[in-house]
């Protein structure tokens, strides 16, 4: 996957930084989903309080943000792949559940887990890595090095997400 000829630093930055087009793609997708959410109505509930409705909507928006980010990134990154798989699963689409890639992933995961057990990790790092695994989607069975790389990309995408959402939110004060 990686080129040997490209110097290390350039390669790293190219691989780890999401570009501006990502911002655009994400904002487009996100806004589209926002429209849909606005159109949709919350399921009827006994309480039917506005706060509950707001919370329901907020959750939907949050999920929309994450999924639209994952879709914009595509399948280049492990975390985006994991999120996309989750999305497909929640949508209940049979076609995607039998995706070939998922089988490959499980095999890779098994191998990665075995390698992890073999290796001796420092204890203080271990707990931190464990927490990181829980935070980054799809990070449960990755070796520390790729986990850190995924975290870097994930952090960048999160920052993009926050920026876009903030600009949208600031545009509609009420």
């Amino acid at each position, binding site marked *: 996957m990686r080129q040997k000829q490209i110097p*290390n630093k350039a390669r790293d930055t190219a691989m780890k930084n999401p570009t501006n*087009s990502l*911002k655009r793609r994400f904002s487009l997708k996100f806004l*589209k989903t926002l429209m849909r959410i606005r159109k949709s109505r919350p399921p009827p509930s006994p309480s039917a309080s506005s706060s509950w409705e707001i919370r329901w909507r907020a959750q939907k*928006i949050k999920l929309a*943000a994450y999924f639209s980010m994952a879709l914009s990134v595509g399948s280049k990154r492990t975390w985006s792949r994991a999120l996309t798989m989750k999305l497909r699963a929640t949508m209940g689409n049979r076609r995607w559940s039998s995706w070939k890639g998922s089988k490959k992933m499980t095999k890779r995961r098994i191998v990665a887990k075995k390698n992890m057990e073999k290796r001796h990790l420092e204890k203080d790092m271990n707990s931190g890595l464990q927490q990181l695994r829980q*935070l980054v989607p799809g990070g449960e069975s990755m070796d520390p090095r790729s986990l850190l790389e995924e975290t870097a990309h994930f*952090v960048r995408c999160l920052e993009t997400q926050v920026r876009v959402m903030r600009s949208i939110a600031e545009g509609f004060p009420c």
Partner: protein
Amino acid sequence: MNMGLPEMTALERQRAKLLEWQEEKVAALFQLQVHGGFYNEGGGEDNGVSTLYFCHGDDGFMGLREVSNQCNTIDPNARIEGWGQFGNIEVPCLGFGGESISRTASCPPAAVEPVSCGMLTEPSEKILQAPVRKDGFRKRKAERMKSTKDCKEEEREKNIKMYSNENDSKLSEQSNCNNGGDKKGSKNRNSTPKKTSESNSKDKSIVSDVQKTDYIHVRARRGQATDSHSLAERVRREKISERMKFLQDLVPGCNKVTGKAGMLDEIINYVRSLQRQVEFLSMKLATVSPRLDLNIDDLFSKEMIPAWSGGFPVMDMSAELTSTAYFQLHPMHQAAPSSDLEMDIVNPNTSMERWSSGFQSIYSLELEQCNPTASAANQSLQQYTGLTELTSMKMEI
């Protein structure tokens, strides 16, 4: 290497050759130094090379001599590459010899003398621990000690690839994995297929720099353990620390904390805070969004997309949008309990301004990517907002 002794293991072979070689090679080595034209850039190296191989003119190395003869026809400009090819073949008989010469390819010839002398004086395998590059040799020796089994397997695997000059690492593997890096590489290959495709970022040897190899060549540093396990550990740790450094640049405030654990905690806190921000913003959007009418959304979705991809016809769209927004909001605000007529008029205008400013913020966010049109679009947008302000002023009056 395949020709003479396919049955013997790497270790046996090299031990036998070593003993034979020790006895005969005093003069040959001095001859090597005489032909120190090898080290100089120039035409001498071919001679030096052939002499070198001539030194080890044992039976087992007939094949090598032939190879060296072949190599002599190699373009002298491709010196290093050519050397690299058979430098690794040479390794089984010399142990460090190939390595020393590869290393001294850019070193003065004097460096070789103590090496060779050291080599000659000790008639055991410790001969391989030349004083000059102790650590690397020791590593090789350690590697070799463990490598018998693996080398057997690898020999069988790599028999076919012996004469493939493209991949030198495979050649050297064929030569009974005396190159410690290859040993490491092969070991890595067995355990983690991913790693072997890593680049030579960790490679410190001169020869392997030029080679195209799939394996990680690591030199043991001075004063460090040369155990293959510890070497692998060190490589892994260095890679992890490289990633950590990158994360450190990414996460603000990570510079003050040093040490992996602290930095990891900072990173985790940052990720958590970002996720909390996303939640908070989504809540904010949820409170805001029910206020808006759906027609706006349709217009938004239909017309914004080509605008953003093109970047330019923002002006027309924003006009349409805000005008419709205005009309939509107006009845809404009429329904709101505001007694003052002026308020009814002013509110939509201010909200329309806010809309336009909101859109502007989004546009500016997106338009900064389409640089040639950004400035123009921004200007047009600003003009438009100026116009809206004018109209609102009129209406207030």
